[in-house]
């Protein structure tokens, strides 16, 4: 046990070191891209707490990211009583606002079993984008809200790209440690008990309601922080910035990366980034295969590949994401990062 703990701490420290030196190794724009990967990673961390540890499914986490993004946009562009809040300080507020929204969804979610919850949260993902359109005087509608430019604050010498990189991964690291402590501690054990058998957990005196709602709120908090960072990095918010399919990508990436392997989530987050922003490059890469010649400007191919990979991965691991992926990643990561 003690050896395992030491290994886990060592692993976290190694990750911290890697995060710190990375911008020295890559180009400025790559750092900016990696920052985006970090944002998806944060959202996936939250989702993994929800799905991996409490067994609830959410197909609506794109909406919580959007809530975070809009909180940042409104506070920094509209301001509060004419007082504009610097975007950096809006990040925790965005997390809390999304967390409260998560709490509000989490309460009715208690009454819904798996599939109904999946459908309702998917409905939330789809419905949320209508809110900024309806209240466009306040939230900007499709024309959106233009935030201030990404700039390095406090007279720091980093380029804006490196600044958003360090900011994102700094926050990601803190949230990763928080999730790790949470999962190691009593709440994590309790959530796992709930995931494995709700009725058994309830019979042994665990308050299902409290823990499940807590998990929902926490995962929404993570998504809100991620959304806020995304809005800051892009400097723009409208309903299309967090498209509906993002919620699907998040759940799929969670399945790909491993539902309770934190490190695998980085792989999942990278997959989302590639799928969203590097589609033509994926096609070009496929063109290197023999007898393949696709037009890289032709859409569709990346989705075909992602869909096929998703299906194949899940079929090869028939006992399900929660069990089998952990076993698959077990030798690599679980011994380091998850308490099983």
């Amino acid at each position, binding site marked *: 046990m003690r050896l395992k703990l030491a290994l886990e701490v060592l692993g976290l420290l190694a990750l911290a070191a890697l995060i710190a030196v990375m911008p020295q190794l890559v180009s400025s724009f790559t750092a900016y891209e990696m920052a985006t990967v970090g944002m998806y990673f944060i959202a996936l961390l939250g989702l993994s707490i929800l799905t991996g540890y409490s067994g609830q499914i959410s197909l609506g986490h794109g909406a919580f990211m959007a809530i975070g993004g809009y909180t940042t946009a409104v506070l920094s562009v509209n301001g509060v009583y004419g007082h504009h809040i610097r975007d950096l300080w809006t990040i925790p507020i965005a997390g809390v606002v999304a967390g409260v929204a998560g709490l509000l969804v989490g309460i009715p979610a208690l009454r819904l079993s798996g599939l109904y919850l999946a459908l309702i949260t998917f409905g939330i993902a789809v419905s949320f984008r*209508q809110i900024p359109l309806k209240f466009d005087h306040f939230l900007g509608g499709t024309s959106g809200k233009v935030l201030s430019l990404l700039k390095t604050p406090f007279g720091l010498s980093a380029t804006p790209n490196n600044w958003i990189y360090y900011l994102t991964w700094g926050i990601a690291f803190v949230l990763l440690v928080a999730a790790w402590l949470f999962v190691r501690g009593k709440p994590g054990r309790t959530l796992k008990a709930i995931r494995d058998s709700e009725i058994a957990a309830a019979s042994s005196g665990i308050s299902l309601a409290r823990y499940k709602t807590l998990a929902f709120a926490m995962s929404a908090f993570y998504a809100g922080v991620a959304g806020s960072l995304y809005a800051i990095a892009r*400097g723009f918010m409208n309903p299309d910035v967090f498209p509906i399919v993002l919620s699907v990508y998040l759940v799929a990436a969670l399945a790909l990366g491993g539902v309770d392997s934190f490190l695998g989530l980085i792989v999942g987050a990278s997959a989302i980034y590639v799928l969203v922003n590097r589609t033509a490059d994926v096609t070009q890469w496929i063109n290197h295969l023999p007898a393949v010649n696709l037009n890289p400007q032709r859409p569709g191919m990346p989705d075909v590949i992602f869909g096929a990979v998703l299906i194949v991965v899940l079929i090869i691991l028939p006992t399900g994401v929660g069990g089998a992926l952990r076993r698959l990643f077990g030798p690599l990561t679980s011994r380091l990062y998850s308490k099983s």
Partner: protein
Amino acid sequence: MLAAAVPVTAAGARPLATPGVTSTEIKIGSSVPLSGEAAIAGNVARGIDAYFKYVNAKGGVFGRKLKFVYLDDGYDPGRAVNNTIRLVQQEQVFAMFSSLGTSNNLAVRKLLNDAKVPQLYVSSGATTFGRDYKKYPWTIGYIPPYSEEGAVYGQYVVKNIKKPKIAVLYQDDDYGRDLYAGLRRGLGKKAGAIVSKVAYDPTSADVQPQVTQLKASKANVFMIFAFGKFSLQAFNAVSRLGWKPQIFVNDVSSASALMSIVPQNAANGSISIVFGKDPAAPGWRRDKGIRLFQSILRQYGADIGSRDLQDGYYTAGMATAYTLVDTLKKAGKNLTRDGVMRVATHLTEKNNPFVLPGIVIHTTSTSRFPLTQVKLQRWSAKSWHPFGKLLSIKP
């Protein structure tokens, strides 16, 4: 701030080179939807690409070849920002050109102006891109503003339709509202002739309920200020409800390819504006410009089918590309970003082969709307027929 460190060329050369410009190449970037709901509009970029290749084959601009890097944004502004940063910082493009969509261009305007990268001839009819040059001197629009288009329809109704009762279907965002506001302005004192207006949401399943509601107002004029499939559905609903109003359909939704697939009993007699030559219209079949367009597309386009040769998005792309090449030529051999902006804002271009004859593309430092002349056109026998004189609009 955004432009990464400018590479210093070897000793003896100029101390500061313009990003994206070498002795053999000019790199131009763009972000357009090649996937998603607005994917068809991505053909604008394919048209540009083909035209640049044609120019290159004829020697380029002052011996420099044009390299066009266009990336897919799926109409998502977040992706458009990411693409633009990639093009400016990683690809080091000389200028951004003809990126598509109002919000996608709004999303990158600040950062391009901050980095002093030209945002040339944006593909959006939002007035702000031509109007707000004091705040954003590096930005310039291209097509006529939507609000002016609405005004043209309003003026036509006042002049030509007795006792108009107007019903308006519009997309519930700034695009639809700009057109609507323009219509009211064009109607002037007769704005009361609008008897009903209904918005639709871009996530609608079908606009039949809206059209049903509009029909119930007993209007005899129907304005379709929609986008893509929603204008198709609107025509379809008009036909299915047995309604026979005079239809006006806004430019963005009036491509021949779209008009020819809706029920013709509803489409016939519809009116729209036009400023580019329509490759699908029989009137232009023998036109030099359209023949040039088709030969360029056949020779330099990628994956071109017979449908594409009649696709107005490709022609629109070539029209803009022609103006850009013109601009680059006038900016001279010593190409700088400052220089190109100066030319783009002092333009007089009389012979663009891809726009209607007689149209002069004209800008001054205080009037940044290159295209301000349009004609009206009427749909019959499965194609558009321009009529009347060139109309000048004053944004």
